[in-house]
């Protein structure tokens, strides 16, 4: 017994307080196995702190139990009336006609599954229809564009033909074909040509003017 005591004391030293409190609640509730219950009883003899804890739990339990204020009516007629009401309510019912919850759940699952499958099918069909529609639309647009390009190509004579024609006729080359330089570009070209033609002396004077 003394060995047991030591073992419990050692276990107590290692165990966190919460576990001990739980053990004492189980002890008060007589929920531990007989041997452990007996061992703990022995521990209580020697440990004032544990004894205090058990007393507290026991008193709290008794306080709650003692505070019970539910008073059942003593008048037997109340129970007779309640009994009659229950019997009358079940008079036209068959006992045990309820559907099992699992069965209800299975039916719910199946219907949900069927609904889900139908929804998935419908959305897939819709997706395919939209894809086909888009494909046809795009195809049509591509065809239209290529027709337009072909028409434009037919309407516009090519650049080489225009140049040859203007060279033969001696007219100025069509701006639309050769492109036009901007005004700034024109003056820049003229200035650079002029500067290139300057003598060294004139160039130095020109640079000095610019600096001043």
């Amino acid at each position, binding site marked *: 017994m003394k060995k047991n005591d030591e073992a419990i004391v050692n276990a107590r030293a290692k165990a966190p307080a919460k576990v001990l409190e739980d053990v004492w609640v189980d002890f008060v509730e007589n929920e531990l196995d007989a041997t452990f219950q007996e061992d703990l009883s022995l521990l209580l003899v020697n440990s004032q702190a544990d004894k205090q804890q058990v007393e507290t739990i026991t008193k709290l339990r008794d*306080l709650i139990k*003692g505070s019970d*204020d539910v008073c*059942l009516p003593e008048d037997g007629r109340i129970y007779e009336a309640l009994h009659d009401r229950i019997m009358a309510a079940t008079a036209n019912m068959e006992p045990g006609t309820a559907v099992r919850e699992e069965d209800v759940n299975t039916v719910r699952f199946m219907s949900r599954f069927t609904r889900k499958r139908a929804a998935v099918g419908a959305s897939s069909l819709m997706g395919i229809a939209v894809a086909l529609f888009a494909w046809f639309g795009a195809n049509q647009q591509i065809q239209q564009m290529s027709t337009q390009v072909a028409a434009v190509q037919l309407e516009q004579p090519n650049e080489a033909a225009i140049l040859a024609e203007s060279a033969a006729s001696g007219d100025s080359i069509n701006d639309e074909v050769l492109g036009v330089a901007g005004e700034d570009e024109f003056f820049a070209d003229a200035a650079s040509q002029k500067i290139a033609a300057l003598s060294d002396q004139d160039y130095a004077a020109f640079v000095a003017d610019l600096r001043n």
Partner: protein
Amino acid sequence: MKSDLELVEDVKNGDRKAFSELVIRHQRPLLRLTMRFLKDQMLAEDVVQESFIKAYEKLNLFEGRSSFKSWLFQIAVNTAKNRLRSMPLEQVNIDDVHLGVDPGAESQMVRGDISKLLHKEVDLLPERQRIALTLRIFEDLSFKEIAEIMGCPYDTAKANYRHGLMRLKERLEALQGDTDWNDFETFLPVEGRRMATEADQ
């Protein structure tokens, strides 16, 4: 006298008298249980009636793995819970709330009205802790029965009870300060005092 299981079999075979016997046998404990949750006799009677009707309807689903009483209590607890949820919340007029001025007032209140305070604290517990505590302390049910009624494993029922009890302990200690727990004994009714003495012995 026939057992509950025998009576259930008779009811399944169409014996109405057997059902009447089951009602007579269980209506009082069921009324007491529902009155604990609903605090109103009329409401509790309604819930008892509804529970028996549900039990009659679902009798084919009762497989006898638990006792008929546990099964019936489970139906009653769930029905009472649903009824409580459908009830509007109690409203308190702010003018009716009196704030304590005297620092000792709270302590005196606890001493003077320990039962009311305990009831209030039990009501404030989380639902599952409250049910486990009520079934264990007031209805003297085993944890196996409590687990069956609550539809949870045995250890969970025990843990709910423990947490509920410890929470009440903490609340009382917080309200009482460093008062000795032995002081509470004088507030116990005679029955409670007798039990406390027996427990001490």
